[in-house]
């Protein structure tokens, strides 16, 4: 190590080597695998979330479609029944004419 100098622009190799030795982690084996595993787990969980949303969305869409179909059918039946109960304008006119 050299004497400290505020205008020293060059790295101190001795101090640098000491710091590197001091801070270097004992082993790097398996670190990459752990990071990639965490990455994979995150992506899987992301897909799971999307999957859950998709399943919920499909179920909601099915319920809505069934409700819409039921409502349409009920409306059609009501309209049909109304047509059967009320006489048409022509029938009413014909019956009125025959009375006279």
């Amino acid at each position, binding site marked *: *190590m050299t004497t400290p100098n505020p205008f020293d622009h060059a*790295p101190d190799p001795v101090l640098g080597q000491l*710091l590197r030795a001091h801070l270097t982690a004992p082993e790097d084996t398996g*670190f990459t695998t752990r990071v990639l595993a965490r*990455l994979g787990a995150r992506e899987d969980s992301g897909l799971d979330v999307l999957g859950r949303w998709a399943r919920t969305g499909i179920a909601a869409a099915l319920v809505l479609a069934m409700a819409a179909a039921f409502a349409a059918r009920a409306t059609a039946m009501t309209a049909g029944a109304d047509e059967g109960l009320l006489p048409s304008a022509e029938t009413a006119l014909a019956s009125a004419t025959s009375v006279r």
Partner: protein
Amino acid sequence: MRIAPVTDAELAAEAAAGNAEAFGQLIERHTPQIRRITRAVLSEPADADDAAQEAFLACWRYLGRYDPARPFGPWLIRIAVNAARDVRRRQRSRPTEPLAPDLALQQAGPDRRAARAELRESLNLALAELPERQRLAVVLFDAEGYSHREIAGMLGVAEGTVRSDVFHARRALRVALAPYQEESR
């Protein structure tokens, strides 16, 4: 036969396209340095490793923002420093602990091991007493070989501040290590 990409920028481009293998290569290239930097911020090795992992995960998320015209290392170091600071903020209530001894130290002979343990302890204490920014500045300058300008960019401070931080950190470390320097003469 396909030739494997060699530069960080090429690997980053492949990783950004979803190639996990390319990202794995980037991790392997930068792991030792990133772990040193997170250890410079966090005294507990397990916390430092958590921060290093978080840094790589964040790197994967933000790869789309990386400008390949600029060097990859400083960009990643910026992410790592932020990740380490986040971990430190989360564990602020926990007391600072000295760094764990390394394997090289454990494998040395008894006398040498004792001398090195003493040196390590002094360096450990001296580093722990430095303000975080000074510690990072001296590690990035002397141990990792970055310029003052590059460090200023990584830490988001003025170049003059980095010069001053390196100077003060070096002075403190040299004072702490002076007895061992005398012995080695």
